[in-house]
């Protein structure tokens, strides 16, 4: 039974992945009464439904779950509260007064008014167009996440002899998955001189199956008129340009691309939210509120996460703060702005408040060994190893922050200064 839809909600959550589900839970815990989650898919759970491998929930549930298990546990606890989940429904537009337009499979065109909104639209994969690989345009070139959905949910194989470009976790996990499905994975190729995947996945997904990983390598040309027939592979120089006179040929019928994720922010840009070019997501305050009061963001739409547990933690907070605003409670604004300095690629949130403990997520620009991370002049932490693909999570207490009233705080990493 679907509960009847209302015209107004305290909190409307756009997207029902782990971020949206946790945001709804957080909003409910903070006292919001009417909460609506809208998701365009047939079921809530987002990307987790297709991630059938284990590796989720070690922080949150203290056990290692598969993606679908993590999603189902969350959906159960959300449904036990007064939350309505509207699936098969696409949020078309959010107006600055938080009037929301939805196209729904069951209800047709719908309009609802929110007191506050949580953006949790996740991200999508970069495609061939993003890297402009030369060659023909045959069938058999697709993103790794699409292949994952085909194999794990629809029972379709993308091909038989498979090459994978990009060594992030999605590419590695699909390499193993396709080997188990009886395909041949000819190799995983990575443009950068290092892999972006977890070492653990290099071992259990590639080494276990003797799949070769070639670093500093790219696809220089895609051959085949109707279907992929072979690839010209080439090593790259310091500028990441292919060295064509050292190229070689790889026979395969499928090329999977695992070349990065882009936060899905069409709704945010239409709302003219202030964006951060480094994360591809909106700029947010310490309460995860965007530049438009009443609109919050969390999960992959805010910045690309690698651990669902961090998504959950962030989204619980976003939901809680969204509920406060919906109930007319406002915290004092932030008074410290965070700035990325040396070796820091991005940070979220973009400002802090010294009145409570703050969680800051960071990424470094390049792999760094034995380094010191500093925030302003009162915080220092030593790291043995930092890599761009592993997000750093820090908590900063009032005792560190209360001296910086009205200031810019710079975050930096200095390599090799450990005694």
């Amino acid at each position, binding site marked *: 039974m679907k509960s009847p839809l209302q015209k107004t909600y305290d909190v409307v959550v756009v997207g029902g992945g782990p971020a949206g589900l946790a945001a709804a839970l957080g909003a409910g815990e903070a006292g919001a009464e009417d909460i609506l989650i809208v998701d365009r898919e*047939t*079921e809530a759970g987002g990307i987790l*439904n297709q991630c*059938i*491998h*284990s*590796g989720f929930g*070690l922080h949150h549930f203290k056990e*290692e*779950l*598969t993606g*679908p*298990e993590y*999603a*189902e546990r969350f959906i159960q606890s959300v449904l036990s509260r007064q939350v309505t989940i509207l699936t098969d429904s696409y949020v078309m537009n959010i107006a600055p007064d938080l009037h929301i337009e939805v196209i729904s499979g069951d209800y047709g065109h719908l309009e609802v008014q929110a007191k506050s909104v949580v953006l949790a639209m996740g991200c999508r994969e970069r495609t061939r167009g993003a890297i402009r690989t030369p060659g023909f345009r045959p069938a058999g070139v697709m993103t790794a996440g699409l292949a994952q959905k085909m*194999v*794990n*949910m*629809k*029972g379709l194989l993308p091909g038989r002899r498979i090459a994978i470009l990009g060594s992030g976790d999605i590419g590695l996990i699909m390499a193993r998955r396709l080997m*188990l*499905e009886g395909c041949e994975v000819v190799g995983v190729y990575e443009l950068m001189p290092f892999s972006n995947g*977890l*070492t*653990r996945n*290099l*071992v*259990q997904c590639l080494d*276990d199956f003797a799949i070769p990983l070639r670093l500093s390598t790219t696809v220089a040309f895609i051959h085949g008129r109707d279907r992929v027939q072979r690839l010209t592979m080439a090593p790259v120089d310091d500028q990441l340009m292919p060295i064509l006179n050292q190229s070689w040929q790889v026979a395969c019928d499928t090329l999977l691309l695992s070349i990065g994720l882009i936060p899905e922010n069409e709704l945010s840009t239409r709302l003219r939210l202030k964006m951060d070019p480094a994360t591809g997501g909106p700029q947010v305050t310490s309460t995860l509120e965007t530049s438009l009061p009443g609109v919050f963001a969390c999960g992959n739409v805010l910045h690309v996460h690698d*651990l669902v547990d961090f998504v959950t933690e962030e989204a619980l907070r976003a939901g809680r703060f969204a509920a406060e605003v919906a109930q007319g409670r406002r915290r004092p604004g932030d008074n410290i702005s965070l700035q990325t300095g040396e070796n820091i690629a991005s940070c979220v949130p973009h400002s802090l408040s010294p009145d409570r403990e703050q969680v800051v997520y960071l990424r470094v620009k390049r792999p760094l060994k034995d380094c010191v991370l500093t925030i302003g002049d009162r915080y220092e932490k030593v790291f043995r190893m930092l890599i761009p693909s592993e997000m750093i999570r820090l908590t900063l207490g009032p005792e560190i922050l209360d001296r910086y009233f009205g200031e810019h705080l710079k975050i930096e990493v200095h390599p090799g200064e450990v005694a």
Partner: protein
Amino acid sequence: MVEKINLTCLGCPMGCPLQLSIVDGEIREVTGYECKRGEAYAKQEYTDPRRMVSTTVSCPTGLWPRLPVKTVDPVPKDRVPAVVQTLHTLEVKAPIRMGQIILENVAGTGVTVIATRSLPEMPEAD
């Protein structure tokens, strides 16, 4: 003669680099782990390497035609292909509950396979 072996702990996403010192085929010392599980992992991996398996089984009547499943305990690494092949010949009927036992003693490993999601029946087209 002390033989040194390097392993990566698969116990959690930290992936600690482990060093094993082996004397006469016996582990003398393990270093490099951040938590106790790493030490246990090293011993297990050296004497009897095992892996968790997650894959799908056919469920033609389900909302999706594939049901994701996993082994509740790790199976011997060299039995992984056999486990997957056995599961690929299986067909189950919706509705399925998360945690429901799909197969016991898969491929003679003594390990149980369970469903990792609930799968309702495909609604009739109206």
